[in-house]
C-alpha cells in the first residue's frame, strides 16, 4: 500500500510521518514516534487507554486513522509534565492513589485534562459521567474521582 506523508503537532512539536492510509494513530504514536504512554486495550473504542487530545477534544486513538490527524494539534500524556514538574492532575492521581497497574492511567489523565477544561468545577456525579469513556479494572474508580476532584480544586487555586 502506498504510504502517505502526514504532518501534525505532537505535544507542541511538528512531526512528519510516512504511513499507510490504513494505519491507526495509536500505532503511529507508539511504533513510529515511540510515544508508548497511550496503550491499546480493546480496539473497539470502549476502554479509553489510548485516549489522546486532538484539537481540544478527547479522542480514542485506536479508531482514528493517522491520515485524519493531518494538520491537527495532538497532545499525549508525554506532554503533560513540564520542566517545572508534574501537571496538577498528575500530582493529584499520585496523592489520591488514583492508579494501580498504571495501564489506563495515561488515557485517564488525558481525559481528565480535557474534562476539567470542559467543566472546571464538577461534582462527583459529573465526574462519573464525564470520565465514563475510560475504563479501569484496578481502582474501582473511587480514588480516581477523588483525584479529579482534588485536581479541579488545585487548578482553580493555581
Amino acid at each position: 500500500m502506498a504510504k502517505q506523508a502526514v504532518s501534525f503537532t505532537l505535544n507542541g512539536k511538528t512531526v512528519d510521518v510516512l504511513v499507510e492510509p490504513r494505519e491507526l494513530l495509536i500505532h503511529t504514536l507508539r511504533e513510529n514516534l515511540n510515544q508508548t504512554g497511550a496503550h491499546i486495550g480493546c480496539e473497539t473504542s470502549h476502554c479509553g487507554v489510548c485516549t489522546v487530545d486532538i484539537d481540544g477534544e478527547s479522542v480514542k486513538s485506536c479508531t482514528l486513522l493517522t491520515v485524519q490527524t493531518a494538520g491537527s494539534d495532538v497532545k499525549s500524556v508525554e506532554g503533560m509534565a513540564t520542566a517545572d514538574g508534574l501537571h496538577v492532575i498528575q500530582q493529584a492521581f499520585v496523592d489520591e492513589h488514583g492508579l494501580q497497574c498504571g495501564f489506563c492511567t495515561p488515557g485517564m489523565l488525558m481525559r481528565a485534562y480535557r474534562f476539567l477544561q470542559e467543566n472546571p468545577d464538577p461534582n462527583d456525579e459529573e465526574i462519573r459521567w464525564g470520565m465514563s469513556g475510560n475504563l479501569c479494572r484496578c481502582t474501582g474508580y473511587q480514588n480516581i474521582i477523588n483525584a479529579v476532584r482534588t485536581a479541579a480544586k488545585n487548578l482553580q487555586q493555581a
Partner: protein
Amino acid sequence: MDTVADKQKREDSLNGVGCSRKRKEDARFIQGKGNYTDDIKMPGMLFADMVRSPYAHARIISINTEKALALPGVHAVLTAADLKPLNLHWMPTLAGDVQAVLADEKVHFQYQEVALVVADDRYIAADAIDLVEVEYEELPVLVDPHKAMTAEAPILREDLVGKMEGAHSTRKHDNHIFNWQAGEKDATDRVFDAAEVTVSQDMVYHRVHPCPLETCGCVASMDKINGKLTVYLTSQAPHVVRTVVSMLSGLPESSVRIVSPDIGGGFGNKVGIYPGYVASIVASIVLGVPVKWVEDRMENISTTAFARDYHMRGELAADSNGIIKALRVNVLADHGAFDSCADPSKFPAGFMHICTGSYDIPVAHLNVDGVYTNKAPGGVSYRCSFRVTEAVYVIERTMDVLAQKLGIDKAEIRRRNFVKKEQFPYTTCLGFELDSGDYHTALEKVLDAVDYKGLRREQEEKRANGELMGIGLVTFTEVVGAGPSKSCDILGVGMFDSAEIRVHPTGSVMARMGTITQGQGHQTTYAQIIASELGITSDEIAIEEGDTDTSPYGLGTYGSRSTPVGGAATAVAARKIKAKAKKIAAHLLEVSEDDLEWEVDRFKVKGVPGQEKTMKDIAWAAYNNVPEGMEPGLEAVDYYDPPNFTFPFGAYLCVVDIDKDTGVTDIRRFYALDDCGTRINPMIIDGQIHGGLTEGYAVAMGQEMPYDEEGNLLGNTLMDYFLPTFVETPKWETDYTVTPSPHHPIGAKGVAESPHVGSIPTFTSAMVDAFAHLDVTHMDMPHNAYRVWKQIKALGLLDN
C-alpha cells in the same frame, strides 16, 4: 538526648509498616513511562499473529500456507506440522494435562490456535492470517457439561482415549478429567438422613473472564551467538515460566531469561503459559530474530484463562435452631477442552474444601468432577485463591437458604454457627487449620454501622408497598498464601517464595523478590516492611522483581500470596540482616549482644545513654570493620516456606433497590469490613478493596461468557463483555478489624482478593433477599436487568 518525640520522629521518617506511603511506582506511570510488554521494541523485531479456528470442534483436513507465505513481508507460517519434529506441538499444562500449542489434527474449541504467522509488522501479519487456507470437517459439539459423560456425548480428546488413569484419579468417561473428594461421605450422609432440617440448592457459578486492560503477550528473543533466550512476557509467575520453557526447549535454565516487565493488570489471566508464548519462542529460535506476539481483546476473552464455570449443589443439615450438623457439596466443573487450570498440583479443584466457611461444621463431604467440553481451556483464579470464590459462594448461598427455610434472620444464623474466637486455631472438618479469627466482632461492627434493624424495618415497609428492596449479608473466610510446600507445589516446585536483600555501605538497600507486582504496589509495600525491620527509610530501599536473571526463584503473584509468602520472606531476610547487624554493633560498641536493645533504627547499649550505633553506621562497618571470623557485607536471602496458609475474613453488607418495571438494580449501599491482619499500607489496602469490590460487582451483575449450541462464544469484545464504568460502579464504604496471623512474621494475611471473593455472594444475597418474601431462594448470576426483569415477570409482579 533521645526524647519520646525524637523517637517518634525517627519512626515516622522510616515510612514503614502502617503508614499510607505514596506509591514509588506512580512516577513512571503518570508520565507515560511505564514499560509494558507491547512497549518493548527490539532491533529486527517481527510481529506474530494467530490463525484461529471458527469451529468449536472440527477435524483439520488441510492447511495451505502458500498464499500467506507469498505475501511480501511474511517470514514464516508455523503449524503443528512444523512443531511436531521439535515435539513442541503439545505442551504440558500446570494441571497434569497436555494442551495443543497449535492444533494437531483437530480443533477443540472456537478460536483455538491453528497457525502462527510471522511478518514485518502487525498489519502485514493480519493480512497474512486471512490468506492461510484451512479446510475443516465439522464434528459434533459438546457445550453442556451435564451431557459430557453421557453415552451419546462426542469424545473430545482422542489423544486420551483409553488412558483411564488421569493425573488426579481414574477417569469414568473419555470426557471425564478427574474426581476429587474431601471429607467423609458416609458419615455426612448419615447425618443428613437423620437431620431435623435439610436444605439443598443448585447454583451455577457462570463462566467469566478476568479481562485485565492489558492483554497477554510476549517478545521472544533468541540470541544465537550467546545461546541465550530472553522472553519478555506478561506473566504473574516468571520463574515458573523459565522452568517450563527450559523443560520444553531443552535449553538449560541458565540460558533462559524471563522478564515480566510492567503488567497492566493480571487478576489470574496471566498465570498460565499460553500457546502464543510457546509459538513465538519457537518462531524466534527458528528465525533468529525477536518476535512479538500480543493478543487482541477478542483473543484475550476467547482463549486465555476463563474462570469459574462451576455447577454446584450446596446442602446443609441442621437442627430446628439452625445449628449446622453437616455440609454436602457437589460440583460439576467445566474445564473446557484442556485441563489447564492453574492450581497447586495436588488440588485439581483448588481450595474448594474451604467451603465450610466461617462456620463450626462437624462433618462435611465435597465431591468434584471435572469434565471436558468444546470451550476454551483455563479455570484460573480470577482475583481469588484457587476456587475460594466458588467455595465461599456455595456456603454463603446455602446458609441463606437454610435461614430462609427456618425463618431465622441471616445475621442471626451466622452468629449461631460461627467458629468462636476462643476456638482458634480451629481445624475444619475438611482439613484446614484456621489460624485466627474473630467473626462475631466483625459482623456486629457491620450491623451497627449500617443500622441493620432499621434497614429491615424499612424493607418491611417497602414490601408492604410492593417495592423491591434487598439486603445481602456475607461473612466469609478465605484461604490464601499458598502455600506450605508439604501440600502445595506447582509442577513439583514447592510454593515457597523468596527475598534477597542487600544493604549497601552507605545504608541504602536493594531488594529483589520472587513475586511480581501487577498494580498491587510491591515497590512501595515491600520497602515498608524492610524499613520497619531494619530502620532504614523506605525511600532509600529499591525493590526489583520480575527478571529471572537477577531475582531469587519464586512462585509469583496470584492467590493473594505476595504478602503472606513473599512478604514473610522479606521480613525474615531482613531479620537475618538485623541479626548480623547486632553482632557488628556489639563489636563496634565493645559489649555483648545481650547488652543491646533495638530502637527504631539503631542498637543501643541498655542503660547507657549515647552508646548506640545506627543501622547506617553498622552498614558502613559491615564493609570495613566486622568482628574477627565474620565475612564482610550485609545481605541475606530467604526462601520462606510458610507453616500454614493465612485466613483473611470479612463481613459485607449490601442494600439494593430494584425497579419493578425494568429490572434495573440500584446498589444503594455496600459496606465492606475486612480483616487482613497487620495493615502494611492502609491507602493501598483501601485501593485494593475498591478494585476487588468493583470486579466482584462486574461478575455478579453483568459478566458472562455465553456459548451457543455450536460452541460459539457470543460476545467476546468490550461491546458485549461487561466491564463496569465510572457511572454504574457503586460507591464503596470500607472498614476493618485487625486480627494478626499468629504464624506470619509480621502478622499480615493478604487482602487483594477478599473483596472479590466476599462481594459476589453478597450481591446475590441482596438480589435474592429482594424476592425472599415471595419464596425465591436463589437466582443465578449475572443479575443483569434483563434476567432480573424475567424473574419479576415470572413472579407476576409486572403491572401490565
